[in-house]
């Protein structure tokens, strides 16, 4: 495969690759229990295809190729499927490929027989999931989009419920499926509005039809899209499925869902709001911004009080999706205020964050998988001290931890830096109130980022540092080399984008160029100075060099000038002799200040033991208030309506026939 070929026919190549994914999935079916073929051949091959997809997408973005379209020879009768590759879909394909490669190679070592679904079947579901996500990104008409979208939802449902013998997992899967379908209905309705009476469902037709939509209809379409994609992305208050489904799924699947699938929702939202609707009203931006900021802070607060490590990461995903939507909202706000350059900056920040999140969140979910396999525990209260047993995983998890906490010089910092930079220009928005309220958003963002650091210190500190809280943890071992490669790949991604932010910003510039006609200045590979160098500039590579340089010199000087004597002693702890592992902060203990400060967010049930209890047990349950105030009433109302309808269910066949007959009569009366 030569470079010109890729540049010439990227779309066709992508189609071949997607088909190969499906073939790989099917290849594992004949021997569902025989893990060797699946693990040693199929998953690594899948990872290679991911890499190929990423390469094609990157080349497409960097060469500034014009959009490519094609019509598939199959589809619904008389309704052929349209596909299209443009900068927006290419960018998200890049995310899919980069994160997918790491996850696939990790999965090769991870899935084993005897844990839920057989590996062969798992491979099929997994690769169908990948292929459907790629098709979502390539779809150019509403039909294909919806078909791919639903395939994605279904395949991921099966992946989530891989251990379907556990009732909680079945429950979580059901909730996920339900929310996915409600979301899909919203998206479908949104497309219905978008066609604007032309009854043409290709995106190209919609692009033209939407310019004649009334403000009311346009806003309706926008809100439906926000609702539908928000449900998939996990925006508060539509997030309830996310902290249930992510812990239920096997770790690579959680990584895939959090790292990639949530991004397809971001993609869909961008496609409809920017590409199809050409963002028209600044109020939309305010709405998205508010929802994004609220999700960000909400996710961070809830992540801080979790004691299940995957649930913690799930809430952290809500936070990060919130940050991405904050950037999108800001971009809408700037764009509708004719501040195009700043809009490009904000959108660029959102896109880069989407890429970054797919890398570090997948990485962390995969490390939880390794920890789970090595120890059998998911609860933070039973872990601890793993840095000594699993140095490999611990080191790589440290990279992910620092990246997600938004610390320089890693990639999480870059996107947060860009977003904060774009917040600096919000006082220029020409709407009273908005230009005063929105700068406060920067503070919320900073609070979120700092809270994220809190959360990650908790996560890393409780899982990997300290003393092991269970005796069985001394058995823990680092994972196999395939898993290590997957982890390493993602960690290198985090570091590379942190050091050379242009790696992510150049591709993102293609998207902002396509959607907004503006790109932020990308003068040099090593520097980012989005608006002007004297205003703000950042260079990850120099910062890293500085950090390493100062640390190295310090180390050398201390070693040269001072002695290196060292002896090992028991921990001092102010002279307290009876130290046990149970005296460390638990996950609950570490989250206590947050619980105290943001008590209004939670519903807390606590059992406090009495002082003379012989076997005292402290039990606490934290709940989302939204679950009770929003979802339970809806569920009860649905139940009630269903009960009312069930009056019809008398058991007698003639009554049923009568009902059908009456319906037929009524319909005939209407029609005739």
């Amino acid at each position, binding site marked *: 495969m030569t470079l010109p070929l890729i540049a010439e026919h990227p779309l066709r190549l992508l189609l071949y690759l997607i088909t190969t994914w499906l073939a790989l999935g099917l290849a594992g079916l004949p021997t569902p229990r025989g893990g060797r073929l699946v693990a040693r051949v199929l998953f690594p091959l899948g990872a290679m295809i991911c890499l190929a997809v990423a390469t094609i997408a990157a080349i497409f973005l960097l060469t500034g190729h014009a959009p490519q379209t094609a019509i598939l020879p199959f589809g619904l009768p008389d309704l052929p499927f349209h596909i299209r590759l443009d900068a927006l879909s290419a960018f998200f394909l890049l995310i899919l490929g980069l994160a997918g490669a790491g996850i696939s190679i990790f999965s090769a070592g991870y899935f084993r027989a005897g844990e839920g679904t057989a590996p062969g079947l798992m491979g099929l579901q997994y690769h169908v999931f990948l292929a459907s996500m790629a098709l979502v990104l390539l779809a150019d008409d509403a039909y294909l989009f919806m078909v791919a979208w639903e395939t994605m939802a279904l395949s991921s449902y099966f992946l989530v419920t891989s251990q379907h013998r556990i009732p909680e997992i079945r429950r979580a899967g059901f909730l996920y499926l339900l929310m996915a379908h409600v979301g899909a209905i919203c998206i479908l309705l949104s497309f219905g509005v978008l066609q604007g009476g032309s009854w043409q469902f290709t995106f190209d037709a919609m692009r033209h039809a939407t310019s004649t939509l009334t403000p009311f209809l346009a806003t309706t379409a926008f809100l439906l899209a926000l609702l539908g994609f928000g449900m998939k992305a996990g925006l508060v208050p539509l997030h309830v499925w996310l902290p249930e489904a992510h812990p239920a799924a096997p770790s690579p699947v959680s990584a895939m869902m959090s790292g990639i699938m949530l991004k397809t929702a971001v993609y869909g939202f961008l496609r409809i709001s920017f590409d199809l609707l050409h963002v028209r009203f600044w109020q939309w931006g305010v709405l998205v911004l508010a929802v994004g900021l609220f999700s960000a802070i909400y996710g961070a607060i809830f992540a801080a009080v979790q004691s299940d490590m995957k649930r913690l990461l799930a809430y952290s995903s809500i936070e990060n999706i919130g940050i991405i939507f904050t950037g999108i909202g800001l971009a809408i706000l700037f764009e509708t205020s004719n501040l195009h350059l700043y809009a490009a900056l904000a959108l660029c920040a959102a896109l880069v964050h989407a890429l970054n999140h797919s890398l570090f969140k997948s990485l962390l979910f995969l490390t939880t998988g390794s920890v789970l396999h090595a120890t059998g525990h998911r609860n933070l209260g039973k872990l601890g001290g793993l840095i000594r047993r699993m140095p490999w995983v611990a080191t790589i998890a440290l990279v992910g931890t620092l990246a997600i*906490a938004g610390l320089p010089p890693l990639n999480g910092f870059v996107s947060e*830096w860009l977003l904060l930079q774009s917040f600096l220009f919000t006082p220029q928005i020409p709407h009273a109130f908005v230009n005063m309220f929105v700068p406060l958003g920067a503070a919320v963002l900073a609070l979120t980022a700092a809270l994220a650091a809190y959360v990650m210190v908790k996560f890393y500190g409780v899982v990997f540092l300290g003393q092991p809280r269970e005796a069985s943890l001394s058995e823990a071992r680092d994972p196999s080399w395939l898993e290590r490669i997957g982890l390493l790949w993602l960690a290198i991604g985090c570091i590379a984008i942190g050091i050379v932010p242009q790696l992510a910003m150049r591709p993102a510039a293609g998207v902002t160029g396509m959607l907004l006609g503006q790109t932020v200045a990308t003068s040099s590979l090593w520097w980012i100075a989005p608006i002007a160098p004297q205003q703000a500039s950042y260079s990850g590579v120099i910062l890293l060099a*500085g950090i390493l340089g100062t640390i190295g010199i310090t180390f050398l000087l*201390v070693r040269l000038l001072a002695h290196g004597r060292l002896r090992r002693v028991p921990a*001092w702890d102010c002279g307290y002799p009876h130290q046990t592992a149970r005296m460390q*902060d638990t996950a609950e203990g570490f989250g206590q200040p947050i619980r105290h400060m943001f008590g209004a967010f939670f519903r807390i049930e606590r059992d406090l033991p009495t002082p003379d209890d012989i076997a005292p047990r402290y039990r606490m349950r934290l709940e989302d208030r939204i679950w009770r105030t929003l979802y339970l009433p809806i569920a009860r109302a649905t139940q009630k309506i269903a009960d009312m309808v069930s009056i019809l269910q008398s058991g007698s066949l003639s009554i049923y026939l009568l009902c059908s007959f009456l319906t037929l009569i009524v319909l005939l009366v209407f029609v005739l």
Partner: protein
Amino acid sequence: MKSITVFRQFGEMLVAIAIAPLFAGWIAQCRAWMQNRSAPPLIQPYRMLRKLFDKDVALAETASPLFRITPYILFGTMVLAAAIIPSLATDLPFARAADAIALIGLFATARVFLSLAAMDIGTAFGTMGARREMMIGFLAEPALLMILFNAFLLFGSTALPSLVDGYRAHPSLMDPSIIFAAVAFVMVLLAENARLPIDNPTTHLELTMIHEAMLLEYSARHLALVEWASNLKLFNYACIGFALFIPWGIATHSADGVVAMLISDAALAIKLIVAGAALALIESLSAKVRIFRAPEYLAMSFLLAVLGLLVHLLLGAKQA
């Protein structure tokens, strides 16, 4: 790049490393005077460091490599921060690599590493200190950011050297928002550097400790580096304050030569002496607040910064 700027860059770092313990010593001395105690000599911190470097490290059995590397990371990041902050001159080649937001990030990195190291041994006090430190940190960060936002609105830059240049170019620009930001900044400075209303740097009561609780397991050269790093952090914060609010005397881009350098040295010395005395005064006058009042205190500083921002938007924008 002129050799003089490189020289300046390294000069600044070395000055920061050398002076930071002296600044801490000066504050301790002022505090002692104000509280009618006999003061320790100015060079006490240096003696302390020397003593610590001479001792053998007593490393906890359960310590991981992370625990051992953290002191170097702390010291390194603080020195690096000193290289970014224009304490003597604004013509710093390195400062372009990281603006003020990156500086906040650098401080956050140091904080996260220290907290992780405190959790590494797995003692009760260490984890308690880490938790509290992170709590103070996540409340102080938004306040600090709002202060920077304020400065950005005034001078259109988040790079500290450009801010100083901007300030020096319009010396008459006295915006009321500066006052708010300055008060907020002092509050953040006290909280972030484990000073009095939030944390007592000289306490021996473990249960009230924040910063000290994290250092309990460190000894000898590790402890020396950590202590030196906290002195540097205080010095850095003071220099950020000078750069943002009283930048007079700092050698700007246009000013070259020995005279400007001498002036900037003298100005820094005077500012540090005054600031140290002022900090000691504030600390002597205030009582430590309960740990659960700390959010209230930091919320106050955040609100002040935001008020400054709003006041600027309403009052300042039209005249400027």
